[in-house]
């Protein structure tokens, strides 16, 4: 059943918190900013992408800002932008919540542990413990909007959002829910940046950040964000405009090689299965939107996958990227997904998505294939289409 529509989207991202802001940024991507964490030892040379949450207090209120962690605030704010509202006191038992988050509320976990270590277990912070569970975002969304259907959180690295999307689609297709709220969220936290610095994961401040660019070196740039979409089965509510539909999602584990992340042929086989289950052919894909993160090693895996897709399609398929807008974070494919929906609504591919190959297309875009490779050996993808 390929009639799952994206009815609403909302996001909080380093590229802006409205669709207009994000599309503008996508035309000319901003540079990463120097990262500073008040009260923390300075991390020399660290740059990244952070969200502006200054509007959160006015929208969510002071109480929630005090009670909730950064990840919950970002996610609730993004969800508010989808125009979700608590529809009745009884709640909505046929709306499910599906969240993908790789690291969960890292800031709250760190706050609880720091306190535990420094205070010798004497003055614990129960609120931080409550917020530290990975499903804190999913339960906050359910509470905020009184959503009583399925409530699932996937916490699996870079495929977290796509796997959550798979379960949402299944819930809709099997009729377990009539509406699905799908969220991908992760926060940029001091310890995450510190850990990455220790492992040499980040590019140095001032170093170009252009995913898929031939001159790329090793490393990426940390980021954060929350992207929310509301899906429903059929029942198009978008007026005269053609709906944007989710045709299929897939995720799995690939065979790792010590020198490459994934053999291009295996990536090609995976994408072929995804397209087959989505009812499209490779030649129909107008844009491959990938999670390439500017690291030369991972970029080469994405380029190999793109070349293999082109070989099977019999033509070059433009490969755009999105992490130059939001930075690298586990659930970033949620941002990519919402960006893809915006592009399909807008009908044009922003030039700033092509940091590497410069192959901007002029023809209208109707079908986007999203693809994500995780360094841990899992990969995922989905297909969305307008009309």
């Amino acid at each position, binding site marked *: 059943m390929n009639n799952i529509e994206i009815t609403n989207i909302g996001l909080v991202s380093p590229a802006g918190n409205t669709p207009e802001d994000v599309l503008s940024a996508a035309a000319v991507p901003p540079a990463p900013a120097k990262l500073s964490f008040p009260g923390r030892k300075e991390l020399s040379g660290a740059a990244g992408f952070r969200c502006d949450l200054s509007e959160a207090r006015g929208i969510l209120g002071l109480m929630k800002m005090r009670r909730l962690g950064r990840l919950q605030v970002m996610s609730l704010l993004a969800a508010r932008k989808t125009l979700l509202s608590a529809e009745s006191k009884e709640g909505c*038992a046929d709306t499910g*919540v599906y969240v993908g988050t*790789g*690291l969960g509320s890292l800031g709250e*976990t*760190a706050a*609880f*542990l*720091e306190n*535990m*270590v*420094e205070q*010798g*277990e004497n003055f*614990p*912070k*129960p609120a931080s*413990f*409550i*917020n*530290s*569970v*990975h*499903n*804190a975002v*999913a*339960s906050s969304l*359910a*509470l905020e909007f*009184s*959503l*009583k*259907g*399925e*409530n*699932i*959180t*996937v*916490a*699996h*690295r870079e*495929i977290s959002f796509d*796997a959550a999307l*798979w*379960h949402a689609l*299944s819930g809709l297709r*099997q009729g*377990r829910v009539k509406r699905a709220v799908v969220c991908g969220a992760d926060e940029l936290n001091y310890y995450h940046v*510190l*850990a990455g*610095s220790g*492992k040499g994961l980040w590019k140095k401040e001032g170093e170009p950040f252009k995913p898929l660019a031939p001159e790329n070196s090793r490393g990426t740039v940390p980021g954060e964000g929350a992207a929310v979409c509301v899906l429903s089965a059929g029942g198009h509510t978008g007026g005269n405009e053609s709906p944007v539909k989710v045709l299929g999602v*897939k*995720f*799995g*584990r*690939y065979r790792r090689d010590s020198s490459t992340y994934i053999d291009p042929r295996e990536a090609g086989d995976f994408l072929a299965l995804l397209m087959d289950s989505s009812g499209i052919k490779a030649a129909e894909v107008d844009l491959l939107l990938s999670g390439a993160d500017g690291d030369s090693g991972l970029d080469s895996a994405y380029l190999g996958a793109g070349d293999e897709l082109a070989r099977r399609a019999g033509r070059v398929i433009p490969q755009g990227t999105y992490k130059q807008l939001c930075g690298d974070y586990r659930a970033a494919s949620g941002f990519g997904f919402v960006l893809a929906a915006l592009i399909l609504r807008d009908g044009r591919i922003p030039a700033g998505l092509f940091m590497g190959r410069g192959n901007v297309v002029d023809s209208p875009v109707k079908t986007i294939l999203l693809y994500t490779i995780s360094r*841990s*050996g*899992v990969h995922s993808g989905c297909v969305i289409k307008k009309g």
Partner: protein
Amino acid sequence: MKREVVVTGVGIISAAGSSAAETWQALKAGKSGLSPFSLLPSARYAGIPVGQLPAELSSLSGLERASRPDHLAVIAARQAFKQSFPGAGLPQPEKTGVILGACVGGMAESELFLQRLLLEGVQDTGLLRFHECASSAEAVAGNLGLFGPCETISTACSSGSNAICLAADMILSDEADIMFAGGTDSLSRLTVNGFGSLLLIDPEGCRPFDEERKGMSLGEGAAVLVMESGESAGRRNARVLARLSGWANTCDAYHATAPAPEGDGIQRAIRGALRNAGLSPEDIHYINAHGTATVENDRAEAAAIRSVFGEHTPPVSSTKRVFGHTFAAAGAIEAIVCILAMENQAIPPNAGLHRPDPACPVRIQRSLESADIYRAMSLSLGFGGNNNCLILESPGKNSE
């Protein structure tokens, strides 16, 4: 005709034993697996009763470098594999996947990282390599050579049972033929201090549904089920241990930690699972309750059971005193308890019960009892009002 999902292998490790057989012995005897907390240093909680395993697990798992939940998950998965595939390999690794529930991940190492950083100024980021709870599912997939879907569900204490539901969904959607599904978690200072800070730990050990209960006992462990379609099991002549005939997940949308007092969300999960299975309440012969032994949990759960099943509820027992509350592993462990109860045609007792709480008006099973059990229900609840209900059926008799 509705396709069926069956269980063809189980693996389990907990403070109650390192195999299904040992686990059943402990369950039969109502034997508590709790012992004084000594696994991790804790000035405040040393000695509280917990369900803990030996500190060294690598000799059992065969993994050299892994987090504690990874070791536990691989041990359980190997047992399940051995039972389901005796002397044979996987038929199609690309169509075989793994979904595990996990909450804690390599938290013990992360705690050590912070302690060394904050107290000694030493920055050993290598300790964070297993921080993410995703590593356990990947360890199982890597160890068994699985190349199908691989993911981690983290819905707090209902993670393991949600993983089982979602695995069934993947099988019915033809995304996979066979799924290794379950949960794993270890003790950590975060969880001990966290539940302690909420005043939810009973210093005398948990006493589910008891009038004087004061909270939970924490534990650690892993349980993995091999699940597949009936056709897949038939093709390879696998022995079917149970059918997963119904399941449902709901959310209370009531409070971040406390369950809705009348168990509204739990009721909906039970009714949803019964509907999914095409069964009536009277078809259920045993309920393994989440039964954490917190005042609110047990009351809400009992209210929900009573609301669906009426005055004459099936026998109910919580087995948390046997294992401790093993978080993400709990739902999978208790699904296996249901399978063992059906295999052995006996209802495991509610260990730790002295005087049933009249505010929990359900039929609590006080001692081991032989009974005709062909359909068992397992309930799991988690933070955020996350509710799960599984219904398992014995393949041995198509009973009425």
